[in-house]
Structures are given as C-alpha cells and as structure tokens.
C-alpha cells in the first residue's frame, strides 16, 4: 500500500469509481442519442412500438430496482457501523432484487421473441392474433386484419418497428448486462463480507459497488418512462 492514510486510499478508490461512472454516462449517451433521433423523427414508430411493451412489468422492475438501491445504500451504512449481519442481509437482498429484475426481463424478452417483434431485419410478426389487443383494435380500425398486412404496416417498408426494437433491445440489453455484472459483484462482496473483510475504516469495495449499483438504477429510472410510458 503506497497511500499514507486509509482515508486517502478510500478517497482514491472513490474518485476512480466516480470517473468510471462518468464514463458509464457517456457509454449510454450514444444509445440515448439513437433513441432521441429515431423518436424525434419518427414519433409514429414509437407510438406503435409501445403497444408491445408491458408497462406493468416495467413498473414492477422499477420498484424492484429502487428497493435494491435502498438496500445497497443500507449495506454501506452497515459496513460503516460494523453491523455484520445487517451487511450480509442487505447484500443478499440487493442480489435477490437484481435476480428478480432479470427474471422479469427474461419474461419480457421471450415474449417479444415469441411474437416476432424484434430488431431490424428480423422483425416479423408471426401471427396477427398474437399482437397486443389494443394494437389489434387499432389496426382493425384501419382495415388491417391479416398477418401479412400487419407486417407490411409495421415492418421495414412501413413504420419500421424493427428500428424501435433495435433501440429497445440495445438499451435494455446493455442495461441488463450491467445488472448481471452487478450480481457478480454482489456475490463477490457477499463472500468477502462473510469473511469479515470490512470495517468502519475499510469498506471501499462496499461503497464503490453500491455506487455502481445506483447508477444502474439511475439509468433505469430514465429508460422506464422513455421506453414504456411515453408513446
């Protein structure tokens, strides 16, 4: 160790983490831009695309992540107060919330793949009757009742929903990868906490991983309304 004090070492790690988070913001920047560009120029694409997204699932995931963000912050508190059991518990709960998030995500993804509402060139609705009900109604009002006609309307020569789902899968997919990484980190943290590695002067890992976890939550706070709510 080449820092003169533990305090200095702690601050160094933390500064490094904040720089990493700044990096994360710009990592997502290109995706937010792609979203803005396609939404700004093709509002109708997003209007139709949104029928496929289930806001209840999105909202449930939002609450799950918010709760895990609280437990993550709590784990820092436990580390500072040297509450060993509390630390283990908060870490475990955070991990479980992350897992729950991914399970819900899994159901969303598989459903979309099942329906055929996926990215770009692969966008191809398999069956008209599997479309979300509201969308079926809307299309029927426009005289569209067959699978082919629906694909013509929604596909790449029509509204281009393939691009909407490209944006959707890339944004939530990249976010999902971050959640998985977070799960890995919390698993590791759990083991270290079990060994009793942390105390009130040495808990940088708990703090920094919590910071990471909060940014994952923070990004989702924006993704949720952008993708699920405003059509």
């Amino acid at each position, binding site marked *: 160790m080449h820092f003169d*004090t*533990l*305090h*200095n070492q*702690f*601050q160094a790690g*933390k*500064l490094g983490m*904040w*720089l990493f*988070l*700044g*990096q994360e*913001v*710009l990592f*997502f*920047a*290109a995706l*937010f*831009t792609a979203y*803005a*560009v396609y939404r*700004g*120029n093709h509002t109708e694409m997003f209007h139709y695309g949104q029928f496929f997204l289930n*806001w209840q699932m999105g*909202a449930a995931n*939002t*609450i799950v992540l*918010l*709760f895990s*963000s*609280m437990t*993550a*912050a*709590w784990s*820092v*508190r436990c580390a*500072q*107060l*040297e509450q060993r059991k509390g630390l283990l518990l908060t870490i475990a709960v955070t991990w479980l919330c992350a897992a729950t998030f991914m399970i819900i995500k899994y159901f969303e993804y598989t459903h979309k793949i099942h329906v055929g509402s996926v990215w770009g060139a692969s966008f191809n609705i398999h069956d008209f009757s599997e479309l979300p009900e509201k969308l079926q109604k809307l299309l029927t009002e426009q005289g569209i009742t067959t699978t082919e006609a629906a694909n013509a309307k929604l596909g790449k020569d029509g509204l281009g929903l393939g691009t909407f789902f490209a944006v959707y899968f890339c944004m939530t997919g990249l976010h999902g990868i971050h959640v998985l990484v977070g799960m890995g980190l919390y698993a590791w943290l759990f083991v270290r906490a079990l060994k009793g590695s942390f105390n*009130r*002067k040495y*808990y940088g890992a708990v*703090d920094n991983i*919590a*910071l990471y976890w*909060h*940014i994952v*939550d*923070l990004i989702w*706070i*924006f993704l*949720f*309304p*952008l993708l699920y*709510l*405003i059509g």
Partner: protein
Amino acid sequence: MSDGHAHSHDDHGHGEALPGTIGHVTPASTLIGVFLTLVVLTVITVAAAQVDVGRLNVVGALAIATVKGSIVALWFMHLRYDKRFNFFIMFGSVLFLLWMVGYILFDTKMYQHDMENYRHNKTVDGKPKPE
C-alpha cells in the same frame, strides 16, 4: 484538481458513527424516506403518462425522471456529503451527454427532409440523384 492533498478528514461520520469512521453515515430514516419518495414519484410518472397531453408527456416524464435521478445521486450516492469534484464529474458527463443528444437530434431533424425526398422521389435538392 482543487482538493489539494487530503490530510484533512473533511467528511466525518454522523452522530451515530463509531469513532474514526471514514465517510458520512446516512441515517436509516433517510434511506427509507428517500425510497418512499422515489416510489411516489414513480407512481406519479405512470399516472401522468395515462393522460395524453402531446409533447408535454415527454417533458413531464423526463422532468420527473431527472428529479428521481437527482435524489438517487444526492442521497443514495452521497453526493450531498461528498467531495465537490465527484459532483462535477457527474455533472460534466451529463452535460456532454445532453450536448451530444441535443446537437445530433437537431442535425438529423434538419436533414430529415433530404432523406424523405430521396426515399420517395429519388431526388436531392430537386435534382435526380445519380446512382
């Protein structure tokens, strides 16, 4: 680079902290309070989205999300009690993000009609485009 050399223990723990604790200890009540606030804001977001007010939907949703994000950053991420520099990193990167989104959006909006023109009439500035 303004924080100088950190010998000063500028961030002491809260009242309940053990002696010598590094960093600020957030009270349990604050954590729960922040969480509940965030949940309420989520409910408001969802509710607001059910009413169709055109473009204002976007503005409203983004505004609420920004408030939520700031709350997470300030309390959960301790930015309120942290070194000012860490705040600037976050703030700076968000500024760059906004500049990127804003400028590219502006530009694509400006050239969109060229693309539409080309798609539908195969012309650019009124002239046929050579293949």
